[in-house]
């Protein structure tokens, strides 16, 4: 990435307008940040000219690399570039609010189904699907990483060590994560000329 979003001089955009723009994005964009790329571009770049296309791409790439949910981090970065820290807070709060409200209402009105009932059976198979989804997500992350073969072997070893340590030896997940992260940072090397971006960007 050659450029990074710099806080620009604030355009004439009020906090209420900022909140409304991100509320609309949060209410209408489905499928995560990358799936919503066109809608984001239409709203922020084409319709309102708040950021350039290049800034949008740079912010999306950066959002994928910092420890935070990508779509939210992107919203926070746009908000920051327009109105500083307050803008960042407002943008990402209003971005998550529509989805969070729907989730809240849904969990309040639904309940845990008894085994053998329609709801209970559906919840059970959804649980199975999510177990598969987690495993699939883990595989996809490891597959997409741009590292050498020797580093990939080490990485797969670290991947296996975490569940074995936690479920096999009762070690703390946090401890295992920190230790393996440090070990990985020491041992895992990228393929020369490749960037870590590509692996990170392909996951959603």
């Amino acid at each position: 990435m050659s450029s990074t979003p710099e806080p620009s001089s604030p355009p004439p955009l009020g906090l209420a307008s900022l909140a409304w723009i991100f509320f609309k994005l949060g209410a209408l964009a489905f499928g995560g940040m990358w799936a919503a790329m066109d809608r984001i571009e239409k709203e922020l770049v084409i319709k309102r000219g708040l950021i350039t296309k290049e800034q949008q791409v740079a912010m999306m790439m950066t959002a994928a690399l910092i420890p935070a949910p990508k779509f939210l981090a992107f919203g926070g970065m746009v908000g920051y570039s327009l109105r500083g820290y307050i803008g960042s807070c407002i943008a990402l709060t209003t971005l998550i609010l529509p989805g969070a409200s729907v989730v809240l209402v849904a969990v309040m009105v639904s309940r845990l189904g008894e085994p053998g009932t329609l709801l209970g059976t559906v919840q059970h198979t959804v649980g199975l699907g999510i177990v598969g989804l987690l495993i699939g997500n883990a595989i996809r992350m490891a597959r997409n990483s741009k590292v050498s073969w020797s580093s990939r072997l080490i990485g797969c070893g670290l991947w296996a060590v975490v569940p074995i340590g936690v479920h096999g030896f009762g070690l703390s997940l946090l401890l295992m994560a920190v230790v393996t992260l440090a070990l990985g940072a020491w041992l895992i090397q990228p393929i020369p000329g490749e960037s870590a971006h590509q692996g990170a960007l392909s996951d959603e």
Partner: protein
Amino acid sequence: MNDATTVGALDVMGVIMLSTLFSLGGGNGQIALIQDYWVGPGLLEPALFAWAYAIGNFVPGPKVSFVTGIGYYMAGIPGAIAALLGIVIPTSVGASIASHWYLKFQRVINHMTLSATFVIAGMMTTAAYGLARPMEIVWGEYAIIVAAAIAFAWKGLDAMYIIGGSAALGALIWLI
């Protein structure tokens, strides 16, 4: 709702804030930490956890909004608000720092991402095992898990379709 007396809104905010640090590269690190802190020790039913996560995939906006449902299950409405704050506060700080100082830390972040990819894969596998263990899975049901994993990892199918398909299959099984 589960045993709300053992987990307060501040605990919810703390765990969600901590879990946000493991979202590097879109890794859904929240899932692993929530599983470890609440599902594993029996404070949250695995089915409720999976249910909130599933709903989160069907709503607009960031998929991480499912944490609001988890917060509600753990500590009611204050828990839901705490979960939201637990996501918003560290993300706004991280986004602001990244906007300001990204170039300075770019190399370190890139290097950590390589390692984090595998570690978060391990955390997700840990969460998957922890979620599956109390579910009393019968042999035939492993096919659903394998199919979902393949569909996501190799076919790139969106999570929404996988969860929707699993729900439809559940309804079909119930009808039969």
